[in-house]
C-alpha cells in the first residue's frame, strides 16, 4: 500500500494511514479475531543543541510504527512493528492471533462498546504548521540565543550544557472492529537552556529553564528562557545543608507538579482495581482539605494533554477527580472501569506494545487566590523547594521521601540555598495538609499545579 514504490514520500504515505489501520482491523477479523484494534503513530522529529556558541548536535528524522491488538473470545494479544509493508502487516496479524492462544480468558477484556466510541467536536488547536516554518539555520539560532542569554546574564555563569531547540509533529490513527476510525495531529516546539554557574570556591551548580508550545506564536523568546535559566542556576550557588527539622514547606510549580503526578497515579484505575493505591475504596470520602479540587480535562484547546478521543476511541472529557477535598472519580480506561463496575472516563493511553494503560488529559490542581510571594511571606522559618531528586514514593501506603533542593525561608523572605536534604511525609496526610494554594497555575506539560504550601513534613539534613 504505502510502500509500493521506493520513492513514496512521507506526505503521500500519510494519506494512507487511516486506510491501512482500517484494513488491518478488517483482515484480523477475517482471520478469526472476534474484536480488533489498530493504532498507527507517525511523526517527525528535529532537535539541535548549541553549546558554547557552536552547534553540538543536529538531529532530524521521521518514523512510523503500527500496533495491533486482537481478541479471540476473551483472550487478547498484541503485536507491533516499524515495518508497514503488506507482508509485514500480515505476519503481525497472524502472530497476534497465534499469541492470543497463550493468554488467559479474562471476562473483563474487551474494546469499548460501540455506543461509547466517538470523538469530541470542534478543533482542539493541537496542530500548528508554523512549527515547521523556521529554517534549520533559524532553529539553530533560536537555541544559540537561549544559551547566549544565559551565558551573558552574569559572569558567574561560566559554562553550559547548551541551549536547545526542538520541533516534533505527530499523527495518531486508531481503528477498531466496532467501526471507529479516527486520527489527530499534534505539533510541538520547545526551547531550553542549561547553564552552569561557579562560585568562588569553584563549586558548580546547574539548572535549566524551558518553554514549550504547540505553536511558534506562543513560544517564549529565547532570551527570556535563557535569562530565567541563569537566574535559577545562580540562586543555587553557595547551597548548604540544614539541620533536620519539621517546618512548613512551599513547593514551587515545577515540583508541585511532580507531587500532583503522584496523585494522578494514586487515582489511576489500574492501581485502584489492583488495590495498590492508598485511594482504593475512598470514592465519596474526604481525602483532602476543602481547598483542594483536582481536575482532569482532555478537552482544553491547545492543551498538552488534549486529544479528541482516547486511545481506545472514547471521546475525552472533563472529569472532576477531587472536589473540595472529596474524592469524586477515578481515572479509567475500559478495562479498569469494567473491573470496578464503573464507566470509562476516556483516559485510555496506548503505547505500541501491551494492553492500553491509563493516562491523564490535562491534570491540574485548581488555583487559589494568593500569589507565591504572599505564600512565602507568611512563613517564618521554612523551606521553599525548587527541585526533587530521586524517586521515593510508595502508592500502596502513601509514604513519600524524596531528595530535594531549594531555598530556606526566614521571616517571609527567601534566603540561602539548601541542598543534600530530603523531604518526607505521607501523601494521605500531605493532601490534608495543603494549607495554601497559589494563583499561579500554568501548563508546561499535561500535568500542572500552582505553588502549594504543605505543613507537617520532615526536612532531613544534618
Amino acid at each position, binding site marked *: 500500500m504505502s510502500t509500493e514504490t521506493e520513492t513514496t514520500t512521507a506526505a503521500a504515505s500519510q494519506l494512507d494511514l487511516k486506510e491501512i489501520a482500517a484494513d488491518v482491523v478488517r483482515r484480523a477479523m477475517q482471520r478469526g479475531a472476534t474484536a480488533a484494534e489498530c493504532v498507527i503513530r507517525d511523526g517527525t522529529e528535529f532537535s539541535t543543541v548549541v553549546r558554547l556558541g*557552536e552547534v*553540538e548536535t543536529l538531529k532530524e528524522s521521521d518514523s512510523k510504527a503500527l500496533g495491533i491488538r486482537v481478541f479471540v473470545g476473551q483472550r*487478547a494479544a498484541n503485536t507491533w512493528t*516499524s515495518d508497514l509493508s503488506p507482508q509485514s502487516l500480515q505476519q503481525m496479524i497472524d502472530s497476534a492471533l497465534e*499469541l492470543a492462544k497463550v493468554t488467559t480468558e479474562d471476562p473483563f477484556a474487551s474494546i469499548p462498546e460501540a455506543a461509547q466510541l466517538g470523538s469530541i467536536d470542534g478543533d482542539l488547536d493541537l496542530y500548528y504548521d508554523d512549527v515547521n516554518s523556521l529554517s534549520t539555520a533559524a532553529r539553530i539560532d533560536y537555541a544559540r540565543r537561549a544559551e547566549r542569554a544565559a551565558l551573558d546574564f552574569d559572569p558567574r555563569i561560566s559554562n553550559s550544557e547548551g541551549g536547545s531547540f526542538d520541533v516534533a509533529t505527530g499523527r495518531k490513527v486508531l481503528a477498531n472492529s466496532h467501526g471507529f476510525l479516527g486520527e489527530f495531529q499534534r505539533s510541538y516546539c520547545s526551547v531550553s537552556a542549561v547553564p552552569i554557574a561557579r562560585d568562588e570556591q569553584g563549586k558548580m551548580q546547574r539548572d535549566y529553564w524551558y518553554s514549550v508550545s504547540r505553536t511558534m506564536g506562543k513560544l517564549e523568546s529565547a532570551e527570556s528562557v535563557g535569562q530565567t535559566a541563569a537566574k535559577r542556576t545562580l540562586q543555587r550557588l553557595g547551597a548548604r545543608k540544614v539541620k533536620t527539622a519539621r517546618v512548613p514547606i512551599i513547593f514551587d510549580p515545577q515540583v508541585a507538579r511532580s507531587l500532583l503526578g503522584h496523585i494522578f497515579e494514586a487515582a489511576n484505575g489500574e492501581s485502584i482495581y489492583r488495590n495498590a493505591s492508598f485511594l482504593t475504596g475512598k470514592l465519596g470520602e474526604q481525602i483532602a482539605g476543602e481547598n483542594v479540587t483536582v481536575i482532569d480535562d482532555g478537552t482544553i484547546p491547545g492543551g498538552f494533554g488534549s486529544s479528541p478521543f482516547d486511545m481506545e476511541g472514547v471521546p475525552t472529557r472533563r472529569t472532576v477527580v477531587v472536589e473540595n477535598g472529596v474524592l469524586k472519580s477515578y481515572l479509567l480506561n475500559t478495562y479498569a472501569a469494567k473491573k470496578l463496575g464503573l464507566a470509562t472516563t476516556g483516559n485510555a493511553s496506548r503505547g505500541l506494545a*501491551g494492553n492500553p494503560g491509563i493516562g491523564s488529559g490535562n491534570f491540574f490542581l485548581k488555583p487559589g487566590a494568593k500569589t507565591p510571594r504572599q505564600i512565602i511571606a507568611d512563613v517564618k522559618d521554612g523551606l521553599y523547594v525548587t527541585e526533587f531528586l530521586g*524517586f*521515593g514514593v510508595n502508592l500502596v501506603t502513601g509514604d513519600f521521601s524524596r531528595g530535594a533542593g531549594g531555598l530556606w525561608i526566614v521571616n517571609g523572605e527567601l534566603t540561602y540555598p539548601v541542598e543534600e536534604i530530603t523531604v518526607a511525609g505521607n501523601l494521605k496526610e500531605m493532601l490534608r495538609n495543603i494549607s495554601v494554594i497559589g494563583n499561579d497555575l500554568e501548563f508546561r506539560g499535561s500535568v500542572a499545579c500552582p505553588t502549594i504550601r504543605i505543613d507537617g513534613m520532615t526536612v532531613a539534613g544534618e
Partner: protein
Amino acid sequence: MDCLPLRSLAGELGHPTDVTMDMDKDKRFFFQKYGLNAVDVQRYLAAALSAGGDYADLYFEYMTATSLGLDESMVKSASQGISAGCGVRVIAGERTGYAYTDDLAPERILHAARTAALIAQGPSKVPVVDLKEHAAHNLYPAAPVDSAVTEKVELILRADRAARAYDPRITEVRASYVEELRRILIIGSDGTFAEDVQPLSRMSVFVIARSGETSARGTSGGGGRHGMEAFLTEKTPEHFAREAARQAIIQLDARECPAGEMEVVLGPGWPGILLHEAIGHGLEADFNRKKTSAFSGLLGRRVASDKCTVVDNGTLPSRRGSLNVDDEGNATNNTVLIEKGILKGYLSDRLSAKLMGLPNTGNGRRESYEHIPMPRMTNTYMLAGEDSPEDIIRSVKHGVYAVNFGGGQVDITNGKFVFSASEAYLIEDGKVTAPLKNATLIGNGPDVLTRVSMVGNDLKLDEGVGTCGKDGQSVPVGVGIPTLKIDRLTVGGTGSAR
C-alpha cells in the same frame, strides 16, 4: 573511491575459531535480509561525508521482542514486536549530525545520510576505506535456544504460585517475562565493521503483602544476556517470587526511618547502584570533556578511601550490562575507574576519546538506531576488600543497614545523589534490629567514597535488573559492591532525629 570488496569482507569475518564459525549464519544478517551490499554501504558513507566531516557511521538495528505479563493470576498481556532501522551519524570536530530511518530502502538511508551531512561544512576530505572487522568478545549465545511461548508463560505462572505460597499475606502478585534479540551492524568510514547479536531477557516479580490495615511492597527480578533457558536452571521463577515476597512480608513490620546523618552499611549486590549514580555517571567522559562534572579535572587525585577500587567491566559473560562490542563497533573493556582511592580513568566513546586525547574504552552506547551514542556504563562495581560482613555490622553503634534499593538519581554538576532503600534495617550496638521504611540516602558523589571505612570480602553483582537512563536514552546495565561501611551519610525519613 574503492568499492567495498565483499571478498575481503568475507575473509575478515571468517575468524578461524569454532565459535565464530557457529555465528556465521547470523553474520551478514542485514546483507541478506535487506539486500544490503557493499556498493550501497560505500554510497551511504560517501553521502554522509559529502559536506565534509571527520567520520561517519551507519548503525543498522533489527530488534525482536516478546513480553508476557501476569496480574491477578491471569496472563493478561502477551506482546511481540519488531523494530528495525538505520541511524547515520556524521562527526565534524565537536559537532554531530544524526538522522535515522525505519525504512531500510536505499533511498531512505541515502536521505538520512544527506540529512546527517548537514552538520559538516567544507569540502569532503575523508576517504572511505576498506572495512575491517575488529576483534570482538564472545560473551553470550548469538542465538539462544528459542522456546515455545507456552514455556515462557509457564515461568510467570510459576512465579505467581510461588509468591502466593510463600505467605497467605501476599495478596497481589504481578510477574513479567521480557526478552529481546537485538542484531546490530556498524559500519564506519574508517573501516570499522562490527556485527553483534545481543540476547537479553529478564523476569520481574512485584508483590503486595497485607496484614490488617498495613500493606507493603516487594520487588525482585533478574536476567542477563541469555534466553529463557537460564530461568529453568539458575535463577528460577520461584527464586525471584520468594525474594519479592520475603521483602514485602518484612516491610509489614517496618518502622519509620530515623532522619539525620549517621553511619550507613550497604549490603552487597544491587546497592551498588550507589556507585553507579554517585561515581559512575560523574566519570562518563562527555561530562568531563565539557567540564560539567563534579569529577572534572580530578584524574590522578584521591576521590575515595584507599580501600576502594572501582571498575566498569563490559566483558563479563552473559551479564545484563555486557556487550561484545559497544554501539560504535569497539570491543568493550574492563576499565579501572578508581584504584585504591585514586581516580584513574573515564568512560569514553569515540568522540570524547578523540577530543580528550584519551583511550577509547568502548563505552559508546545508544538505546536504539534512533539515538546518538554517548559514553555509558556497562557493569560497574567495586572490587572485594578484606573485611567480613559480620565485622562491618558489628562496628556500627547506631546506623542504617540498606540491603535493597528502589532507584536513584544524580546531579552530575554538583555531585548530589539520592536513592531510596526498599529494604533497610536499623543497626543498634553492632546488631541488625528493626526493619525500616522510607529510608532515603542522600549525599555528594565526590565525598561519599572518601568516607568508606570498611569494604567487605563478599563482592556480589546484582541479579540483572538495572536500566540506566541518561538524556532520555535507556540502556541495560549491571552494578555491584561488596558490603560497605560509609562513616557518615544523610538519611532522610519520617522518624524523629535521634
